């Protein structure tokens, strides 16, 4: 894989890895156990540009390419998947839709503080009755004079507990079906904006995933992103790019599991030899390394296509599907190599195993991605 990287990409990997190992490595276990959000590290990440990776410099970002982007996400996730999730969701589905669909005024207002990490973004799509069924959204934003009256019950909002700028998907026209959905920006602190309890999750526990509800919130008309009825288009465009980031997150988790599996296999002695000398273990190591590399290459390809301005919907779906499934398998094998210790919190592989599982669910389930890929293949 490194063969394909530029010197700039390599410098990104080296610097992000060094930062994450030093700053996140020592606390990754604790923030998982306590489900706490490491503000101190997040502030430093903001200063280093991790919250505006592909935002143009003129708007306070780092102006990076998509390949550098996936490297940043992979490296953060290799050390702490919850923070990797925070950064990728913020960048890809929090900030990117503002860049792609926002007016100049909207960009100037919201993007610079988001790009500097002074504010955190969130994508509020999922509802109790709408997830994979994207058209099932029940939230409403009814135009009333100079504002929208918004009522929404959004669940499983990544970064929800700390988000300042939220993209709310709501029906501006209750009778227009899929074409009646719009995106309205809601800022924390708006009257009626309520952050629900944090979810007590199985993995990615350092991410404050929560519900966000709006009760009769009055949001100015200028908070509409794009035009009325563009909601699903904005959402699906954001998710096309977003799932490259989730694929990179899955690769990072799997890479960490591979490294731990190899380290343990070389140390642990059974039957008079390191278990890395036992063929059954080497089979697992080979499968793990191959799947990690294949997942990384698929992710890399979708990032390159995006940089080249070529279509990447099918390719990013393939990357996300393969990387998330591979991450589950690789982390499972890392637990298996560790035996009983792998099931103990004394070793980090049980955390990787829990963290990997959700990558098959959020930002489009594996099942939905099968449909997206099949559609792409059949239409060719």
């Amino acid at each position, binding site marked *: 894989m490194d063969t394909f990287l530029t010197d700039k990409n*390599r410098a990104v990997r080296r610097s992000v890895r060094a930062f994450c190992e030093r700053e996140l490595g020592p606390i990754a276990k604790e923030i998982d156990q306590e489900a706490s959000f490491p503000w101190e590290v997040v502030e430093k990440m903001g200063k280093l540009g991790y919250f505006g990776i592909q935002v143009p410099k003129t708007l306070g970002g780092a102006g990076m390419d998509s390949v550098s982007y996936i490297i940043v996400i992979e490296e953060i996730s290799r050390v702490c998947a919850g923070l990797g999730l925070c950064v990728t969701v913020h960048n890809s589905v929090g900030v990117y839709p503002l860049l792609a669909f926002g007016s100049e005024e909207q960009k100037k207002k919201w993007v610079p503080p988001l790009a500097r990490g002074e504010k955190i973004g969130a994508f509020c799509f999922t509802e109790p009755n709408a997830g994979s069924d994207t058209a099932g959204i029940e939230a409403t934003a009814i135009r009333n004079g100079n504002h929208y009256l918004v009522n929404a019950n959004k669940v499983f909002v990544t970064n929800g507990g700390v988000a300042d700028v939220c993209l709310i998907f709501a029906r501006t026209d209750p009778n227009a079906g899929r074409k009646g959905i719009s995106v309205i920006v809601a800022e924390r602190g708006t009257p009626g904006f309520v952050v629900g309890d944090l979810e007590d999750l199985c993995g990615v526990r350092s991410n404050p995933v929560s519900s966000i509800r709006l009760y009769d919130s009055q949001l100015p008309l200028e908070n509409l992103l794009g035009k009325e009825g563009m909601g699903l288009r904005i959402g699906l465009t954001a998710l096309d790019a977003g799932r490259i980031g989730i694929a990179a997150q899955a690769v990072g988790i799997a890479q960490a599991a591979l490294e731990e599996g190899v380290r343990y296999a070389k140390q642990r002695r059974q039957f008079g030899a390191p278990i890395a000398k036992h063929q059954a273990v080497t089979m697992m190591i080979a499968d793990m390394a191959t799947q990690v590399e294949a997942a990384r290459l698929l992710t890399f390809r979708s990032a390159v296509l995006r940089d080249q301005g070529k279509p990447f919907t099918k390719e990013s779906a393939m990357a996300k599907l393969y990387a998330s499934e591979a991450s589950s398998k690789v982390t499972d094998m890392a637990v298996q190599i560790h035996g009983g210790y792998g099931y103990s919190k004394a070793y980090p592989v049980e955390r990787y195993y829990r963290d990997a599982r959700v990558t098959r669910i959020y930002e489009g389930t594996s099942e939905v991605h099968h449909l997206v890929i099949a559609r792409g293949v059949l239409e060719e």
Partner: protein
Amino acid sequence: MGLKIIVCIKSVIVNPANQSVVRTSDSCELNPFDRPALEQALRMKEAMGGTVTALSMGPESSAFTLHEAMAMGVDHGVLVSDPALVGSDTLATSTVLAAALKRLEPFDLAFFGTRSADSDTGHVGPQTAVLLDLPMVTWAHSIESSETGLLVERRIDGFLERYELPFPSMLTFHPNSVEPRDLGLSGINGAFEEGEIQRWGLSDLDLSPSVVGEKGSPTRVLSLSRAHSTKKCEFLDGTAEEQVEELLRRLLDSGLIG
């Protein structure tokens, strides 16, 4: 006006070599002992204005390291690279760096790391200062400007020394004198996409091939092989407090701390 500061940096081998040394951007990194020198230079520039130039002698792969320095905030990068330089020992290297520094004159300060992480001699900074006949303080901890020059604090073996240096002068910095900054993404993007490195060969420095490379090197590495060290694990007895005491005593006795 501000200061013109030159920081001499080296691209070092990340992993121990086997027999021959192959330098690529993957196998090399910025000498960690040079990072404090770069940080000190950048802080001086931020406080007093001016420019910071990173100077390196090495193969083309060293350009990566110069770009990394530029990502930290260095303004200019200069790479001295020439096939005739292969095999240079520390004296030949100092000869080349002194010539390059001459070409960069007038400058106010030239900084070095204390030593390099791969060859670990610590010769190059002081030798270069001798060749240029400039004052140098080694292992500096902190610096501040005075009316006539620079006040330098040097802590060594439990002593605190203070020096006043005129401009121009040269310094090496204690590895723990300052916490080097992390590379931000914006800095990396700018340095690698737009940062230009000036490249000089031997002819640009008016140096004869006889004073550099193997010909100009009185010392010669006869062979290079991986050293094998055996690790042994020992468990300390006693209560936790006794174990800590014993551990501290051993670390002190072996000179690893203190």
